[in-house]
């Protein structure tokens, strides 16, 4: 385990930075305390990862907590504001998803042009989101999907319930792994064609964390049925029996988007050819189908890798590591420490947007 002090300093540094980022005063003491709690929670995760050497175990705790926290935050906001479980209107707010934006890209471009010209900073929604996405992609790349995404913790949570999932060793055909990319291409084309956010309206079950449209007519009922089927199958049932993140690995188009653009990020998970014993354990346990037996022959991990750390924790030969490009060190710095620092900061900052509110809501409910 080595010396404990550098690990404490690492965790403390993250706590301080997230604390500063999320700080908003004591006007609401519950919220103030929740902000401190959140910062400490992220810092503690960093400390525990370094102290125990188990990356994925502690990452998963943070990640799953974020997904459920996001649901608590959105649901309580939505119920508090409208008193209704369903949304009765079409989606009017700025979609925060590129798939949804494809249907109204020209409107957005024009709107953003007007916002820039008139210096109406408050109307900079999509631009700001675009800028945030760029920062996240530069700092984390595809690792967003296992460290900071506020949806991914749902199927990860279910995939970890059974210790020995019955279909853990089931090998999918390699081309099925390209399904998210196919869905991404199709949804962008169709959203543009129909001028509607088709993925949001018809496919994405992750609206469970926000709100569904009122099932007032046959089409809306069909949408709800599709959401339910896809959701139950890919977020609950398949993760349970396969122990894999089937929604993130086989459906989520944002994962494919990040796999493509995440290549600009320098962090990688690399298999050391000299040390690899070709046991194939990593291919069996990879929760997002990013490693296959074929890819081990090179050995190379596909661009769909989420940097979740499961294979790093389990590899019996210790042949897998975080690298910057192909290098284990970046100057005097350890690539692993650099990556973990970057990942925890981004996850903590993303979570700071909703986790303190969610924690405060739960705390008020429990202790008041």
């Amino acid at each position, binding site marked *: 385990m080595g010396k404990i002090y550098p690990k404490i300093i690492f965790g403390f540094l993250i706590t301080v930075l997230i604390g500063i980022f999320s700080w908003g005063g004591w006007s609401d003491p519950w919220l103030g305390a929740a902000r401190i709690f959140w910062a400490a929670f992220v810092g503690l995760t960093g400390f525990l990862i370094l102290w125990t050497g188990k990356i994925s175990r502690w990452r998963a705790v943070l990640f799953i907590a974020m997904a459920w926290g996001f649901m608590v935050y959105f649901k309580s906001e939505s119920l508090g504001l409208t008193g209704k479980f369903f949304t009765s209107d079409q989606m009017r707010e700025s979609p925060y998803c590129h798939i949804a934006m494809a249907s109204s890209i020209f409107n957005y471009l024009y709107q953003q042009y007007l916002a820039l010209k008139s210096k109406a900073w408050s109307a900079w929604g999509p631009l700001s989101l675009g800028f945030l996405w760029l920062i996240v992609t530069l700092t984390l790349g595809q690792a967003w999907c296992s460290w900071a995404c506020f949806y991914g913790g749902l199927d990860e949570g279910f995939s970890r319930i059974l210790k020995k999932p019955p279909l853990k060793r089931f090998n999918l055909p390699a*081309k099925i792994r*390209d*399904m998210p*990319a*196919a*869905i*991404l*291409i*199709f949804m962008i*084309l*169709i959203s*543009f*064609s*129909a*001028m509607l956010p088709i993925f949001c309206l018809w496919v994405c079950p992750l609206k469970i964390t926000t709100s569904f449209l009122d099932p007032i007519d046959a089409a809306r009922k069909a949408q709800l049925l599709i959401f339910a089927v896809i959701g139950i199958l890919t977020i609950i049932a398949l993760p349970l029996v396969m122990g894999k993140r089937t929604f993130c690995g086989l459906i989520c188009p944002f994962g*494919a988007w990040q796999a493509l653009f995440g290549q600009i990020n320098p962090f990688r998970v690399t298999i050391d050819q000299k040390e690899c014993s070709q046991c194939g354990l990593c291919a069996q346990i990879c929760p997002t189908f990013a490693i296959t037996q074929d890819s081990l022959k090179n050995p190379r991990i596909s*661009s769909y890798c989420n940097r979740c750390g499961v294979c790093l924790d389990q590899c019996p030969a210790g042949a897998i590591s975080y690298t910057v490009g192909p290098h284990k060190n970046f100057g005097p710095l350890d690539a692993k420490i650099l990556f973990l620092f970057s990942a925890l900061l981004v996850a903590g900052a993303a979570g700071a947007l909703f986790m303190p509110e969610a924690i405060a809501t739960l705390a008020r409910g429990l202790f008041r």
Partner: protein
Amino acid sequence: MPYQLINLSTFFTEGFALGLSTGAYCLGACAPLLVPYMLGEGKSTWKANGFILMEFMAGRLLAYILFAVIVSFIGIHFSNFISPRLIRLAMGLSGLLMIIYAMGRNFSQPTLCRRALNSPALTRFPLILGFSIGINICPPFAAGMTRLIEMGSILFGIFYFLSFFTGTSLYVLPLILVTPWLKYERLVSAGRLCSFFSGIWFLVQSLR
């Protein structure tokens, strides 16, 4: 300038302007078919993809000209009768073609689709695909059709739709920009899977 020639240039300009103003709609209809096909079948050379694109465009042009001739003959009443049916037929045909293509390319099992894909009837697949989407009477196409009937001349009608086709094509031509991406094997595989979704989408649209 002779009267006929003035009219011809007027109709040409009018058709071109209609095509330019509504081309985004055509792009929306063509892209979900053409992009997955180009990703799945194209090569990372401009020439190979240019050929696919040209074949597709030729199919569309053929459908437009055929339509111009037929509508000039049959008149407005009959065309009003066949339009909604033709839309469904066009959508259904496009969807079916894409499903056959996707099944033939993605799976080794359904030999029927593989055979169909290799049959002489489908050797010019992009041409047939272009034709099937070309006969889809979209709103801009319907606007052109009304004008065509007003003209009452087959020659003017052909010119009108030729210029309409030119205007709309300016939107479709940039789809060839997918070419440099085709060197990525995964994208080719994704394109083939995507063609299946497109097929289902068009088929469902035809049944609505």
